[in-house]
């Protein structure tokens, strides 16, 4: 019986992979459902096992079965590893994703699984923390905080009980790496969490997954059940979010697990000292925890050898939006934005010129193609007025209206604000109104009160366009410095970058920024 590999990743299923799998089953093939390889233009992707390895075809529909089986299908790719989208990647974290049956514990073990955990068990907790420090691993959830230092704090804090919490809330638009890993290689995350548990002395862990990720929730729960014996006495459970973006913020996430409203806590105390139920808690992104097995099995140096500046190791970058070759591209830091968008991504899907890319989700900055020389590196992006965040890149073509995108950023902040601080809760709504007025070229005029004769010092003439823009900048400044967390604090990134790089969309003259380039 011919063995066929077809992804059951949510994206592949959305593109019809289930129907393709059914068609192959009806043709008496043995169908193994895997995770996704990560390039969606070739999904649904079918790989046929042959004596000389797997041969890939994609995209393939249910009507293509015969042609795939006799090898005559025009969308034959050959060995997937040799496809240009994959040949340049450095898959440390996603090595198994798309290759194995995600829920087969024997597949996992045969393909290098559990090696990191076994290496960790042979070391003392401090040695494991030292290895993570030496690797240079920084948090992949957004802030880029050194993971080893976070673990050290938890290890050093005395407590009867400690927790490992995995942040799988992945709310950023343009990101899907956490989802793909949980669906395509769930034991890998479990292994990373078990290593963290050993390193800091925690016995229990939570994986907080957003409710939109129904496939990932199911796969993770099943994988936890199947691997319980392997990671004992460490135990794990999944908790499901409920549609709130701000619950991705670590303290808000802890509140949510505790069964409360997802309101952000003031720091200090750090979660590493007083986290879940007041106990020391490691909270890390899926990708941070999933980088750890490699660091333990191959050694921290092997990880640190790859990268750029103070950004060590690889980053599973997600290329999304209006792009031809969208998908997951894992590579060492240092690759430029231009390489990612133009060469690897192949430019826009619409065929029109790229006008802007947003990096790092809804709180990330918009960059014009003139900044495509930027290397993928935490510091380089920060200097350029942006952030890497969870490494999602959203590509826009020249039909995008950047004032609209700036308005959307404010609107999103208003919708998702937890309400704890004023600059975020109120400022975002005022920001939306302000951008509306700027775009409509209807600056604010004096209101009824201001025109009363008693209000002698009130201004009675309308603001100018420039004054409205100035006010928007001022508002962004207040949000940036006066917000408790990065939702209110970083919403200015997309707004100001849109304003700086695309002033013409706000009705201003583009001269200044162009001259600066």
């Amino acid at each position, binding site marked *: 019986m011919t063995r066929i590999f077809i992804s059951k990743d949510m994206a592949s299923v959305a593109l019809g992979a289930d129907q393709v799998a059914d068609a192959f089953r009806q043709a008496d093939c043995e169908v193994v459902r895997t995770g996704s390889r990560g390039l969606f233009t070739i999904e649904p992707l079918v790989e046929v096992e042959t004596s000389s390895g797997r041969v890939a075809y994609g995209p393939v529909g249910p009507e293509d079965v015969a042609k795939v089986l006799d090898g005559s299908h025009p969308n034959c790719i050959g060995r997937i590893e040799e496809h240009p989208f994959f040949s340049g990647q450095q898959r440390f974290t996603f090595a198994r994703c798309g290759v194995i049956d995600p829920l087969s514990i024997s597949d996992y073990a045969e393909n290098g699984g559990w090696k990191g955990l076994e290496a960790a068990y042979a070391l003392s907790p401090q040695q494991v923390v030292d290895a993570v420090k030496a690797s240079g691993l920084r948090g992949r959830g957004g802030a880029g905080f050194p993971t080893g230092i976070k673990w050290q704090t938890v290890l050093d804090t005395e407590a009867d009980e400690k927790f490992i919490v995995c942040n799988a809330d992945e709310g950023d638009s343009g990101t899907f790496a956490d989802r793909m890993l949980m669906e395509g290689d769930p034991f890998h995350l479990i292994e990373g969490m078990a290593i963290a548990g050993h390193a800091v002395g925690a016995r229990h862990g939570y994986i907080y997954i957003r409710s939109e990720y129904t496939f990932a929730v199911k796969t993770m729960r099943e994988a936890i059940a199947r691997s319980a014996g392997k990671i004992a006495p460490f135990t794990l459970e999944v908790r499901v979010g409920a*549609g709130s973006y701000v619950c991705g913020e670590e303290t808000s996430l802890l509140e949510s697990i505790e069964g409360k409203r997802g309101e952000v806590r003031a720091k200090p105390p750090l979660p590493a000292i007083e986290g879940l139920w007041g106990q020391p808690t490691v909270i890390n992104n899926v990708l941070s925890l999933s980088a750890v097995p490699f660091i333990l099995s191959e050694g921290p140096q092997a990880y640190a050898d790859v990268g750029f500046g103070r950004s060590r190791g690889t980053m599973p970058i997600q290329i999304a939006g209006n792009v031809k070759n969208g998908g997951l591209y894992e590579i060492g830091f240092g690759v430029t934005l231009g390489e990612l968008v133009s060469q690897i991504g192949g430019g826009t899907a619409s065929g029109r010129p790229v006008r802007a890319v947003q990096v790092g989700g809804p709180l990330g900055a918009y960059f014009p193609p003139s900044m495509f020389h930027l290397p993928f590196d935490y510091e380089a992006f920060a200097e350029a007025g942006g952030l890497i965040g969870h490494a999602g890149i959203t590509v826009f073509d020249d039909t995008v209206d950047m004032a609209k995108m700036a308005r959307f950023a404010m609107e999103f902040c208003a919708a998702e604000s937890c309400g704890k601080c004023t600059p975020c809760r109120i400022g975002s709504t005022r920001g939306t109104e302000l951008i509306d007025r700027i775009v409509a070229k209807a600056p604010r005029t004096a209101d009824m009160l201001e025109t009363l004769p008693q209000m002698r010092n009130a201004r009675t003439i309308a603001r100018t366009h420039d004054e409205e823009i100035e006010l928007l900048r001022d508002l962004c400044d207040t949000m940036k410095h006066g917000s408790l967390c990065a939702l209110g604090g970083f919403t200015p990134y997309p707004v100001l970058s849109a304003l700086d790089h695309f002033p013409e969309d706000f009705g201003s003259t583009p001269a200044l920024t162009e001259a600066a380039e």
Partner: protein
Amino acid sequence: MPQRGRKEKSAMTDIAAIQTLIDGAVHRDARGALLPLLHELQEEFGYIDPAAVPLIASALNLSRAEVHGVISFYPELRTEAPARHVIKLCRAESCQARGGAAIEAAMAQHLGVAMGHARKDGQVALEPVYCLGLCAIGPNALVDGRPVARIDGEAVTRISAEVEA
């Protein structure tokens, strides 16, 4: 998920069934039982009956305000029966970059319902969602929980017909 609203009638305050779920949750989760319990109630009945609030409060030793506060905080939790079909259309940036706004307008027009609302006849609701993690193949939606990608004009017609049936 796909069977949203399947038991909408049974929730004509099926207090006993609600209480059973509550007891189960208290028994199962020693800590942080509230959110999993609310999910469970919603999955079972399609929504969280406000009549459940005092029962939950007393079982978990919380105030009613705390329980209500949690329910109202999370966009996913609802206190009214959902429409028979729910389309959750992604409104986030990557889907916008792929023409999401036009699809949203077409969908609203086809279904005869504004974004964020349920149609008066209870047949269908169009709800916003901010990213489904399918960002390279948008515009995307969950149609009664089933992921649908690359929605174009034709797909709008197809989905509309599907939810009218």
